C-alpha cells in the first residue's frame, strides 16, 4: 500500500516552537509544512495553549515548503490566536508562498461546521415509521394510477404497446424457463425425499404422492416461481427504469409527450401477468416430474402407479387454487418493480438501494398475499 509520504518524502521535517515572554508569544515555524506532515502537526497545534496572549509574532522565514494543507494549519493557528484576543503584529513567510496564503486567508471565512450528530433513537424510530406509512400511501396512489391507465387501454383512445409487451413476455417468461424448470424439479425431488422418509415410518409411502401433488400444485409451485421472478425480473425492472431516470431519459420522454406509465410500466406489468401463470404451470409440471423421479428411485413406485395415485389425490380445484394466485403475484412484482424504479434519484447508489428494496418488498408482499389467499380459501372451503 503506497502512502503519500512514500511518494513525497519529507526533506525537512516540519517543526514549530513557541517562545513566550509574559503576554507576548513568538511562534516560529520551519521545515516542510506539507500534506504528508499535516497529520503529525495537527494534534500538536491543537494542543497549544493560546490563552492570555495579547500580542503574537508569527515567524515563517525558515519554511522550506508550504502547500495548501500546511497553509491551512498556519492560518488556523493564526486565527486561534486572534480569536483568543491576541493581536498578530507580525506575520512573515517566504515570498513564494505569499499568494497561496493570501488566497486562503481571503477566501476561507466561515469556520468549518461540526459534523451533525446522529439523531436520537426515538426520532429515528419515528422517522422510519413515517417513511413506511408514506411509502404505503404512495404505492396506493401509484396502484390507482396504473389501474386507471390500464382501464383506459381497454377503451378506444389508447392501446397497449404490443411490441414492448411481446418483448417483456419473452424476456420475463420464455427466458426464465430454464431456471424455473431446474429449481422446481429440484424442489420436487427434495419434497418427495423428505415426505417419503417421514411417511415410511407409518408404512404410508404411497401417500408421498398425495403430499407432492397437493403441496406443489397449491403452494410451492406458485410461490417458488413468483420468488424467482421477483428476484429476476422485478429487480431488472427497477434497475432499467432507475438507470433511465439517472440518465434523464424519463424526463426526456415526458417532454416529448410520452406517458411513462404507458411506455414503461404497462407493457412490463402486462407481460408479467401473462407470463407468470405459464411459468407457474411449467413449475408445477417440473416439480411433479422431480417428485416422480424421486419416487421411482427411492420408493420404487413406477410412473403409471404414480399417475394413478396422483389422480386420486388431487382435483382440478387443487391445480386452480395454485394458478389463480399467479397473475396477482405477477401484478405485485411488476407494480413494485416499476414503482421503485421511478423513485430512483439521480445517483448511482439509489439505483442499487431501490433495486434491493424492490425485491425485498415484492417477496414480502407475495408471501403476505399467499397467506391471505390461504385464509380466504379455507373460509370458502376449497
Amino acid at each position, binding site marked *: 500500500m503506497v502512502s503519500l509520504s512514500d511518494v513525497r518524502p519529507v526533506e525537512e521535517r516540519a517543526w514549530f516552537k513557541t517562545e513566550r515572554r509574559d503576554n507576548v508569544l513568538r511562534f516560529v515555524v520551519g521545515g516542510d509544512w506539507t500534506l504528508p506532515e499535516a497529520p503529525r502537526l495537527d494534534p500538536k497545534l491543537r494542543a497549544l495553549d493560546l490563552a492570555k496572549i495579547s500580542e503574537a509574532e508569527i515567524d515563517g522565514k525558515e519554511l522550506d515548503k508550504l502547500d*495548501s494543507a500546511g497553509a491551512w494549519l498556519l492560518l488556523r493557528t493564526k486565527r486561534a490566536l486572534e480569536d483568543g484576543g491576541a493581536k498578530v503584529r507580525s506575520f512573515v513567510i517566504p515570498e513564494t508562498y505569499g499568494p497561496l496564503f493570501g488566497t486562503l486567508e481571503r*477566501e476561507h471565512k466561515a469556520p468549518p461546521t461540526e459534523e451533525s450528530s446522529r439523531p436520537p433513537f426515538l426520532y429515528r424510530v419515528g422517522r422510519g415509521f413515517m417513511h413506511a406509512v408514506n411509502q404505503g400511501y404512495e404505492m396506493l396512489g401509484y396502484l390507482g394510477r396504473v389501474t386507471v391507465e390500464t382501464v383506459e387501454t381497454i377503451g378506444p383512445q389508447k392501446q397497449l404497446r404490443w411490441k414492448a409487451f411481446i418483448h417483456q413476455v419473452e424476456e420475463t417468461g420464455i427466458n426464465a424457463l430454464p431456471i424455473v424448470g431446474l429449481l422446481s424439479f429440484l424442489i420436487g425431488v427434495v419434497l418427495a425425499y423428505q415426505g417419503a422418509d417421514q411417511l415410511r415410518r407409518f408404512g404410508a409411502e404411497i401417500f408421498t404422492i398425495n403430499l407432492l401433488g397437493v403441496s406443489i400444485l397449491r403452494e410451492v409451485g406458485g410461490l417458488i416461481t413468483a420468488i424467482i421472478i421477483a428476484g429476476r425480473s422485478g429487480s431488472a425492472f427497477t434497475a432499467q427504469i432507475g438507470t433511465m431516470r439517472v440518465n434523464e431519459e424519463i424526463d426526456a420522454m415526458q417532454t416529448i409527450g410520452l406517458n411513462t406509465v404507458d411506455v414503461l410500466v404497462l407493457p412490463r406489468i402486462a407481460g408479467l401477468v401473462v407470463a407468470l401463470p405459464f411459468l407457474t404451470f411449467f413449475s408445477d409440471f417440473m416439480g411433479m416430474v422431480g417428485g416422480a423421479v424421486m419416487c421411482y428411485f427411492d420408493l420404487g413406485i413406477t410412473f403409471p402407479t404414480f399417475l394413478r395415485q396422483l389422480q386420486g389425490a388431487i382435483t382440478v380445484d387443487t391445480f386452480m387454487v395454485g394458478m389463480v394466485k399467479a397473475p396477482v403475484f405477477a401484478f405485485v412484482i411488476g407494480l413494485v418493480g416499476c414503482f421503485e424504479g421511478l423513485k430512483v434519484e439521480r*445517483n448511482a447508489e439509489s439505483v442499487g438501494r431501490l433495486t434491493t428494496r424492490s425485491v425485498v418488498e415484492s417477496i414480502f408482499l407475495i408471501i403476505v398475499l399467499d397467506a391471505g389467499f390461504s385464509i380466504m380459501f379455507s373460509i370458502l372451503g376449497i
Partner: protein
Amino acid sequence: MTVSADGQTNGKSGDVIISARGIVNGFGDRVIHDHIDLDVKRGEVMGLVGGSGTGKSVLLRSIIGLNRPKEGSIKVFGHEIADADNISMRALQMRWGVLFQEGALFSSQTVAENIQVPLREYTKMSQTLMNEIASMKLSMVGLPEDTAKKYPSELSGGMKKRAGLARALALDPELLFLDEPTAGLDPISATNFDVLVRDLQKSLGLTVLMVTHDIDTLRATTDRIAVLVDKKIKVGTIAELRKDDNPWIKEYFSGARGRAALDS
C-alpha cells in the same frame, strides 16, 4: 518546491514534466494521432485544442494512463506510463489531479466526502482535519461552505465542476489535468473559472494541461497552446499560432468568434 518519487528536487520551472513522443492512437483502421510529440514544462498552463473528433480527450486519457496508445512513449515526471506497475502508477496518481468534463463526482457521497476520498486513501489524518481541509478546498474553488454536505445531484453544472476541481486539488498535486473545464458554463461562471485556475496556478505553482474549446479561456489562462490538426500537433503561443497558415488554425483564431475574443 516539489520532490519527485526518486527523491530528487526538481522545482525549477522549465523542466519538462510531460513528454510524449511518437504517439499513435486510433480506433480500428481510423488513425487519430499520427506520431505526435508534446512537451509540457513545469509551471506552465498548456491548452489543448482541436476540432470535434480530433482526439483531444483521447490524448488526455493516454497521458493519465486510462487509454494505452498504439505506439509511442509518454513520460510523466520522467516515468514511462506504459511500463508503470500498480505501485508506481499510484505514486504518479498522487502527484496529479484530474477534473473530468462533468466533474465525475461520486454520486453516493457528499461533496466533502468526495474531496476526502484521496485524503482518506493516502494519508492518515483525523476526521476533523479532513473536514477542515475539505472546507478549505471548497473555499479555494469559490464554493460556499454549505456545499460540503450536499450531494452531487443537488449541485448545478458549474458547481459540480468546481467541486470536481476541489477533489482534484485535494492532495496538493503538482500537475492538474482539466477536461473542458468551462464547457457548459455561462460566460460569467466561465470567466470566474478562468481566473480561479490562473490564481490557483500562481499560488500553488501548478502545471496545468487543459482541453478546451473556449477561446476566451485560452486567452485568459494559457501560456502555450497545442493544436491537434490533421492528426498532428502544433504548439505555440496564441500570437505564433495566429500567424500559422493551416486553414483550420486560421479559421479557429481568426474566425468571427476567435477575433472577437482575441482582439477585445
